[in-house]
């Protein structure tokens, strides 16, 4: 039943995004960002399955975004920049992962945070290369050889984000039900048993970690392509915190959760900023508080609960 609900929600969500982006042009940008962050949060969800929280995944978001920004000057092709960014994020994720998967819980979270802040400092301090907090502006980028302008370029990035979201969503959905995915969930409840069954818990967690880095990398590349301007703020700890915030908001019970959470987050932010310009963080804080107290399963949990009551 979950499976059907997830599929329906995913397809309905995709249709809704396209309809909204068509009807309200300025929402196109907001929804693209939401999908990009949803991708990164999908990676966070993998780690949450193992009971681990990373407070440093903005590292991979920013790495990928800067690769796109630097790479666009050399190879201005989105369909090459995106896989290159994902590959870089995955490679760095493997190197960092080999180190951090030895740790659990607060140590895992804080090590990720520390490493992401090191990268933030590098971006901020090496002014001659990165232009510090001013960031880097992207030159025009082609899509499959086509030089797109204005609306067409926005639609292309949105379509790219949507395809990636659906593809990674389906992939993670399948992987979580596989022996590897269930072993990952086993790390949360009985890690030692895995070892006594001949399974390396570290390697299981490492595979999830690398996958999460790749997904964050895809998200970062999309963000760079759609904002056309990358700054060190992408690597700052608040960005990492935002990803965890969205994961809790959306709910870790389903691959739909991260995208529900990201859409709700971005829309709340936009409307709260318009409504109470100086207190939008307050509104977000109250929303999160409400979710934790009244809907610990997140938005996904609320929707599933509602449909179960109806069918019961």
């Amino acid at each position, binding site marked *: 039943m979950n499976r059907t609900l997830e599929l329906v929600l995913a397809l309905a969500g995709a249709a809704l995004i396209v309809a909204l982006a068509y009807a309200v042009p300025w929402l196109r940008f907001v929804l693209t960002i939401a999908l990009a962050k949803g991708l990164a949060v999908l990676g966070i969800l993998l780690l949450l399955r193992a009971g681990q929280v990373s407070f440093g995944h903005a590292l991979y978001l920013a790495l990928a975004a800067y690769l796109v920004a630097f790479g666009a000057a050399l190879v201005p092709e989105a369909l090459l920049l995106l896989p290159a960014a994902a590959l870089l994020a995955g490679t760095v994720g493997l190197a960092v992962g080999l180190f951090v998967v030895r740790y659990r819980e607060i140590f895992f979270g804080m090590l990720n945070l520390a490493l992401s802040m090191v990268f933030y400092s590098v971006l901020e301090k090496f002014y001659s290369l990165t232009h510090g907090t001013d960031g880097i502006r992207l030159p025009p980028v082609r899509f499959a050889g086509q030089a797109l302008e204005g609306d067409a370029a926005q639609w292309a990035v949105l379509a790219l984000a949507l395809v990636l979201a659906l593809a990674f969503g389906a992939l993670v959905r*399948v992987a979580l039900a*596989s*022996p*590897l995915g269930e072993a990952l969930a*086993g790390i949360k*409840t009985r890690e030692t048993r895995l070892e006594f*069954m*001949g399974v390396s818990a570290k390697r299981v967690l490492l595979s999830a970690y690398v996958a999460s880095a790749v997904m964050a990398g895809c998200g970062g590349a999309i963000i760079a392509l759609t904002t056309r301007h990358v700054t060190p703020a992408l690597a700052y700890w608040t960005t990492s915190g935002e990803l965890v915030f969205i994961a809790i908001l959306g709910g870790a019970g389903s691959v739909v959760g991260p995208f529900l959470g990201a859409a709700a987050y971005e829309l709340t932010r936009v409307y709260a900023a318009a409504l109470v310009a100086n207190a939008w963080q307050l509104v977000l804080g109250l929303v999160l508080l409400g979710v934790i107290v009244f809907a610990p399963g997140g938005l996904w949990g609320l929707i599933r609960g509602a449909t179960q009551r109806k069918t019961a």
Partner: protein
Amino acid sequence: MSVLLSARGLKIAFGGLKAADGIDLDVEEGEFLAIIGPNGAGKTTFINMTTGYLKPQAGEITFAGRPILGLSPRRIVGLGIARSFQLPQLFTEHSVEQNVALAVASREGVWSPLAPLLRPRYRDEARDLIARFGLSAIAETRADALNEGARKLADIAMAVALRPRLLLMDEPTSGVAAAGKMAVVETLARVLRDARVTAVFVEHDMEVVGRFADRVAVWGQGKIAALGTPEVVLNDPEVQRTVIGTVPAGGVHAAA
């Protein structure tokens, strides 16, 4: 019969307590060896040393002729030694079926992210094993909702699913309701004999030991105080005094 597991001169102490003080013990291929002894004697420590969880301060353990001390628990499982636990170690948020299927998958390698855990082959094998342990009715119950006896059996089923050559069980029947205990032991013995598994088990219930064990080792003060068939060892007055305390009237008889 050939020796499958061999321990020589094992020594380990925790603070002042000598859990093993020169242990020599051979486990024959195909036998069921019970280890009995007072609480805190070092019986579980022996299992922990054999499975790579603890390293003795001195001594040697060989499995099928190969030294295994210093190998990780994971490597030792790969060689064919599985264990169950005194306190069942289940994946509490998974069902019994998923727990056992994950053990089956572990044996085959978990690195297949695209096919489900409960694919027909794994699910059928898990269900078959669950049925043989009499747990079919609770196959889809979450492990954290089981009673102690069922948790214990599921824990052993997971170890059996690894198809080990040697199975080490830490008090397999503690927590199993007294009324059904012997039935459980019979089932377990049948499953293990069918799979030709050599078994070492730590046990406090002398009736279980008498029925189930081919040989009994008495662990006392870091030494093997006695070793032999259940009829001989369990009727030894010294063993009765120090380990068993009281015995059922008429002594202890081996299973037919």
